[in-house]
């Protein structure tokens, strides 16, 4: 007598083994019945179940990604948060296979919800062939995040200092406005090449440059102590301090400790020595102390300077007093005119600084509204300030800003807001409505899928 239950169970084992026989860890074989189930799960937005299939290794992420994307037209409009639930499937895909699977989505051949496309694009461009990335960088792309990814990948594969410098310079030139593209990591260079690279940018972009090249300065600062030593040595060797570019080097030194929370004795020693060696640097150096975030570090440095001798009276003494007493800290902003007074005639970076302090102001809501309603003598400057303020808390403040904007509808501010939205890609319904009504071309660029 045959044990039929045993036969049935054994048949199941055999089928599983036959299905899995091409896999070691995952399952790329999917039955047509299960494809149908996934289609149903997509239509009913049951993304958790699909992700669970992936977690349980019932199917490999690659095959699930393939089925999901081929049937992405079934996905209904859902919130980005809900859409995120599908992401574990894509995040775990083999990059080479994923970029192949994504091709039809990128080429807009499948009606895929735009918020899913936006989530997948960074993954795709992180895995696509390098030639494609190169094309994107050379020809531009609507999405700055994509440019950033491609830039990072291109940079990462260059291992020679000269070539790296030229390549970065090329793209800094092509994308002068983009802050994201200035995030350069050169840690992959070998020590010797790193040193060469550092010397090249120090000479070409800091000492010999006519303007502040913030992208390069950021890269320079990333070299930490090595860059700091290079700057200190350079200044120590100067007999006189007249060139404005040398002041930039002082700023680099200050920048090294501006963001430091530790009272680093090595820095202190080196800065004090520099202060002592070259009297003409003292002025710049002391002014720079104002920027130091940790008051204790600034106070320690002042104490050291005082021991060597600080000139009596004048601006240096004022700064020293501010630092010693800690009274320098916050700007007092009572009115919009206070803001104007603080930012007028100052570099753009100062605008950013004031905007951050402004965010902490007790009267923020009232004053922020007033920025839109009054007619100021220098509207351009105030509008630039508005944009800087919004950047501090974009998703929240853009909606408030648009509500205020509606009252007066100043055209120049409209254009600035549109540019900001284009850059930051805010997606609230207020923002969409504003862009839709005010510039349909921008609307298509941001919320359409033109390549």
């Amino acid at each position, binding site marked *: 007598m*045959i044990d*039929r239950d*045993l*036969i049935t169970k054994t048949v199941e084992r055999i*089928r599983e083994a*036959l299905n899995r026989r091409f896999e070691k860890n995952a399952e790329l074989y999917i039955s047509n019945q299960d494809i149908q189930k996934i289609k149903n799960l997509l239509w009913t937005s049951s993304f958790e179940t699909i992700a669970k299939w992936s977690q349980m290794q019932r199917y490999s992420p690659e095959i699930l990604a*393939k089925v999901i994307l*081929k049937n992405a037209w079934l996905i209904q409009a859902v919130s980005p948060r809900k859409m995120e639930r599908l992401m574990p499937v894509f995040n775990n895909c083999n990059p080479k296979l994923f970029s192949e699977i994504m091709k039809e989505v990128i080429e807009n051949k499948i009606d895929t919800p735009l918020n899913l496309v936006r989530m997948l694009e960074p993954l795709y461009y992180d895995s696509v062939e390098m030639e494609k990335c190169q094309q994107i960088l050379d020809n531009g792309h609507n999405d700055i995040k994509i440019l950033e990814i491609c830039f990072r990948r291109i940079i990462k594969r260059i291992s020679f200092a000269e070539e790296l410098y030229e390549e970065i310079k090329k793209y800094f030139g092509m994308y002068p406005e983009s802050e994201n593209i200035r995030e350069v990591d050169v840690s992959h260079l070998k020590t010797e090449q790193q040193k060469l690279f550092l010397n090249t940018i120090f000479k070409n972009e800091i000492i010999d440059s006519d303007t502040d090249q913030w992208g390069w300065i950021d890269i320079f600062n990333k070299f930490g102590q090595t860059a700091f030593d290079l700057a200190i040595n350079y200044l120590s060797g100067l007999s006189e301090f007249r060139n404005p570019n040398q002041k930039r080097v002082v700023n680099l030194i200050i920048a090294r400790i501006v963001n430091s929370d530790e009272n680093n004795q090595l820095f202190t020693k080196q800065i004090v020595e520099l202060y002592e060696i070259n009297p003409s640097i003292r002025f710049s150096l002391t002014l720079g102390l104002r920027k130091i975030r940790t008051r204790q570090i600034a106070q320690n440095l002042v104490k050291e300077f005082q021991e060597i001798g600080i000139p009596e009276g004048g601006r240096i003494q004022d700064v020293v007093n501010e630092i010693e007493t800690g009274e320098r800290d916050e700007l007092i902003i009572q009115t919009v005119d206070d803001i104007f007074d603080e930012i007028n005639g100052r570099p753009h970076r100062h605008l950013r600084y004031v905007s951050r302090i402004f965010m902490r102001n007790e009267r923020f809501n009232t004053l922020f509204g007033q920025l839109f309603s009054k007619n100021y003598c220098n509207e351009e400057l105030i509008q630039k300030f508005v944009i800087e303020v919004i950047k501090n808390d974009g998703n929240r403040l853009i909606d408030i800003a648009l509500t205020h904007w509606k009252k007066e509808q100043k055209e120049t501010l409209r254009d600035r807001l549109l540019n900001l939205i284009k850059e930051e890609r805010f997606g609230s319904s207020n923002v969409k409505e504003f862009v*839709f009504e005010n510039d349909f071309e921008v609307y298509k660029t941001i*919320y359409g899928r033109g390549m």
Partner: protein
Amino acid sequence: MLSKPPPYFCGIDLGTTNSTVSVIRLESDDPMKKLETRPIYQRDENYRFNKTTEYLPSCIYFDLDNRRVFTGKYAKSIYASGNKPMQTIRSVKTRIGGESLIEVPKINNIEDVQYIDIVQCSALFLKTVRQSLKDQFNQEIDEAVITVPAAFNTDERQATKNAALLAGFRKVEILDEPTATLLYYLNSGGDFLLNDSVNDGYKLVYDIGGGTLDVSIARVLEDSSGDLETDIVARSPRMDLGGDDFDQYLAAYFLSEFEKARKSIEDRTKEDQSQIIARIVSQAEKEKIEMNEAIKQKLHNPRRLETYKRYVDFEVVSGMYIQDLTVTKKILDEIYSDLVSTEIIKPVEQTLKYAELQKEQISEVIITGGMSGYYAVEESLTRFMGANTKLIPIDSVASVSKGAAIHHYNLYYEKLKKIKLKDRMSDDTYIKVGNEFKMFFPRTTEPNTTGTFEYVVPEDGLAEFSVFLYYGINDKPDNLTKLAGKFFPLKQRLKKDQSIHIKWTLDKDKIISIEILELDGKLTIQKDQNYISDEIESNFIQTLEINPV
């Protein structure tokens, strides 16, 4: 289909277990005399180059280190040994049209894998066939008719067509397997009970292959010219059941008996288990075939049938054997009881229900496919249909490919009998409007028809205008399949409820052209989605040498 006739009319039965190819050479007074099944060149079990075998076992063995691939008997022997589980594959037909991929590592470098899809696998079989014909006729063979199960959906048919294009065929026609069988039967002197007034000409075609089972009920009437007018009145739903399942049930018996005497193989690594199972299943297939022959010889002699015994012996894993395992017909019946009592009859019951017919209204059952000669299938059908229904078995090995070759010939000449199938689109066409799928035009739409669809803008704030078409047989979205579409750039804002008129044309080749009057946009959508030449030429499989001489 074509204007200038090719030198050879070629029909290919791309089977789950085996493939065959038949050809009719040129035009002649009696094309049936020129109809022949041709050998498919391949390497045999012993790696000898074989030019005589008239079927190609549907097995593949990948040797990617050397950019080689083997199809047929040699690949099957490697599969059966279980020694290269990651490099061998069979039964791809049951997965075609889906998204499955096969991860094939190189043999000497496990890290470097290649992903191969089912269309590519099928293309390797078809490429073997095409190359083989080229070697025999010293001529490129560019056209073919390839058969598929009648229940294959559009995706599965399209995937099969693309496999043929990938294999180098330039013009390909897809034909249902039961139709091919009937065509062969009709032209080779088959004795139909035609125009029988009692039963209204209803025939049931039961097609059981290596992995698929199709049941169709057709009303077949002979017209004045001797051609058959065939109206398919009902079809069974797609069913993945066939010879493979019989192999697996028998293998399950072998494995369970082996494990009773030894330890369970589940303690072993997955690779080991795969190897063992591949060996057992391959042995089961062999035993199934041999036992069937023995049983069929004894069917008319109950006493001999009752005493029939077969002793099974083989090496399961190195040094461990199944020895003297007794199999009788009674044991086989018990092993197969699930399959025989329900599975293989279920689609017959369903199809009768769809056709709103009683089984007594069926005058004949035409039984075909690789498993049609299996004793358990015949017994089971006879038991269900009753002794009065005539069972007509049709040559199961090559009738399908022969029928396909006849169909190819019929596309150019009038000498042979034809089957006139009622031509209708199988699916409705839908358009996505917002989150809804609306009927664009129904499946009853005749070719050369023009119409206008009024697209009502579903919401404010559209950044682009999307026209994507889908097909299916009802408006339940997850039952639909993507056809094609496009995002049209908008020159101006669209407002909710605004009407956009989409003018469409369905031409004689079922190609849909779309014109959006308000947007000045045009789009052509081919109902078929054939691979384009770039996809074909740059495909990875073109870099592989198949069955090197």
